[in-house]
């Protein structure tokens, strides 16, 4: 339904209405249009770090999650040029961490994997970095597997803004950036993190996993196994119950 009173911008040639103040990705999502993304989540303030949502707005590259929609703005989204860039960005994320999809509990529910399928990523292309990122299995209910972290800071935002706990933060710089938890020991068991926290649900990849429910839904029947991410615009990352 298009509200005729709203201004519109043009995304891939299609008129998309927006309410003033909305970003391009908010307007597109509300209109059921898919702009590939990883660090953006409708419930949280834009972060603008993954750059997967890079579009060309009036001829200039920018992240769709940080550009405010303007009336008459012409936006290129799913063009060959932009999907090529997205594929390269995804490949960079895959080689930066240790992503072994076949053995990952998140496979099929993973936004990184689904987005890679969506833009036709067939190989990691670059040499793997193989970083050393030990897992933290200290918590009774939750496992942290840092190997899969893509630095989107959704858990940081959820814990800070929703749970009011500040369990997570990024430390380090550059390629040495890494997720830390809020305890002197550096272990998740020494924080007040709980499996019921919003931060426990929000990870788009497989860093934060609840224990004792792994593979409850078999691979093949999971969220993105059933239909591609581009066909599920507006749907949130799956909760444990759905998975």
């Amino acid at each position, binding site marked *: 339904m298009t509200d005729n009173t709203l201004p519109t911008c043009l995304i891939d040639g299609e008129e998309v209405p927006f309410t003033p103040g909305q970003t391009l990705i908010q307007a597109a999502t509300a209109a059921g249009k898919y702009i590939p993304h990883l660090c953006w989540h409708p419930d949280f303030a834009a972060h603008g770090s993954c750059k997967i949502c890079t579009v060309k707005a009036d001829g200039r590259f920018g992240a769709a999650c940080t550009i405010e929609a303007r009336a008459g703005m012409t936006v290129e989204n799913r063009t060959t040029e932009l999907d090529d860039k997205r594929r390269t960005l995804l490949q960079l994320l895959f080689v930066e961490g240790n992503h072994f999809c076949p053995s990952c509990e998140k496979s099929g529910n993973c936004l990184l994997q689904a987005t890679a399928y969506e833009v036709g990523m067939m190989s990691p292309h670059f040499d793997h970095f193989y970083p050393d990122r030990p897992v933290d299995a200290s918590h009774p209910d939750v496992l942290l597997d840092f190997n899969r972290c893509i*630095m989107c800071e959704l858990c940081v935002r959820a814990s800070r803004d929703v749970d009011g706990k500040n369990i997570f933060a990024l430390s380090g710089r550059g390629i040495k950036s890494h997720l830390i938890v809020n305890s002197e020991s550096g272990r998740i068991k020494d924080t007040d993190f709980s499996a019921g926290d919003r931060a426990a649900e929000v990870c788009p990849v497989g860093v934060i996993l609840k224990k004792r429910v792994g593979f409850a839904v078999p691979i093949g029947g999971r969220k993105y196994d059933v239909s591609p991410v581009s066909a599920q615009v507006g749907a949130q990352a799956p909760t444990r119950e759905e998975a």
Partner: protein
Amino acid sequence: MPATMTTTSALQSVLARQGHDGTRLMQILRETQEALGWLSPPVLTEIARDIGWPRARVESTAGFYSFFHTRPLGRYRVLWSDNITDRMLGNIDLMQAMCEKLWLEPGRVSEDGLVSVDTTSCTGMCDQGPALLVNYRAVTRMTPRRVEAMVDLIRAETPVAAWPAEWFAVEDNIRRKDILLGNALVPGEALAAALERGAAAMLDEIKRSGLRGRGGAGFGTGLKWEACRDAMGEAHYVICNADEGEPGTFKDRVLLTRYADLVFEGMTIAGHVVGAKKGLLYLRGEYRYLLEPLESVLAARRAAGLLGGNILGQPFDFDIEVHLGAGAYICGEESALIESLEGKPGRPRIRPPFPVTHGYLGQPTTVNNVETLAAACLVAKHGGEWYSKVGTTKSAGSKILSVSGDVERPGIYEYPFGVTVQQVLNDAGIEGCTQAVQVSGPSGVTLGQNELERRIAFEDIPTAGALMVFDCTRDMFEVARNFAHFFAHESCGFCTPCRVGTTVVARLMDKLATGHGSPYDIDEMFKMHRLMQGASHCGLGNSACNPMFDTLNKFRPAYERRLKSLDYEPAFDLDAALSQARQMTGRDDAAAHLANVEES
């Protein structure tokens, strides 16, 4: 335990001095580390508790900056400046010699916990290298003899304070003065002229002068001050960006050494114009040695009624504080600098909003370069029209250049805008032929021999002022490789293209350097350039591939002679991988080498 008591009392006095204020976390961490040697986990916990921040946020900041360490790195920490100019002066050989004498590998701490030796990004001593930092204190002009003497002092555990004073001498090397460096202003003169004009009229003069930002981007200073002045907020702030991190640049160091009054006076004038009561000077950690001298200048200005309440008898209050950075090039980006001033990791903010409306503590803030603020004093004294007559149409005034590399007289040269690169080279003295000039540091532009008539001006080459000169014996591939590693080291890590891309590029350059490159890898570099230039979050990622792009276009033979074949070549070298097996089996006969096996 006495040790713990000492720790606690040292920490408590730092926290008290910094007012238990989390926005001062950078200063708390630096002073704590100066007192305790390193930032241990319990110390970070105590700091977090005291300032009322989540511990993870304190650790986040402590882990971001190169000069903070959350593990012990020795009672003596030696960091060799690793700009290309230091390399040309032989820093790597000197560092190796130092490591051999200390029985140490670069990057490792000695077994007895005494010393560590490593490299760091350019320390801003390019005109007097090879340079290093010892316990974050700048040392210049290293020689083999100094290395030997330094190793002896470290072994004898002589405190750094008792080391020969001449090692820490930093020369100004001012070679050419123009309107700014040759000014005859006395402290307070420009400020009095500004106050007499009144804030609105002073702003008009700045706009009339055509003064543009000297950090390289060249934004109109008048426009910036006006936007800040007009923005609504509880308080307004003036920030002086003295995070001079662009390799090859050292003019702010000299301004802050010899012309500190002028810089502070420019900040005060800016404060009067935008309606600020507080100014902050963000000094790069490499210039730690300037902190005390700058604070005495501030004290003298307070005593003279040029800072504090009722300045020069007028109803105008303004004061300035110096904050130190801790080894992060990205903090030269103004929004990252503000994050750092607020005690956070220096990650550039999403813009808009810009600092002029939402800056320090969310308030209207003008962030100006050291040189811009100093130049504002000239405008205050002589008027905008006078100033606009110097330089070119779109680039009013003068520019201070930091000249280093293959010249006879490296140092500071001030010219009216519009000077040709060739003119600067003539004045600095060239022996033999010049192959290339890197203008504005790694993020700038590489000029070839046929481009030396180009001009230093916003109309042609905008620059923060670095000129690194390379004669015909220099390998331009190695120049670009040095820069690639610089960007990989300094990427803040926020956005994907820059965080991972800079490392991918540095690895590609290393692959070529070890003789495993192919045309395929050069295509890959262009691909990374195209990706990072459009998709990165800030200027660092956008310009990180510039030196590679320029040198590939202008000095391609330097790359091509390294290519192993014209087809794809893997980075993995099977025969080299077998060397371990040869070593373990004690075999080194012909049949143990792959090349011979293939032939048979």
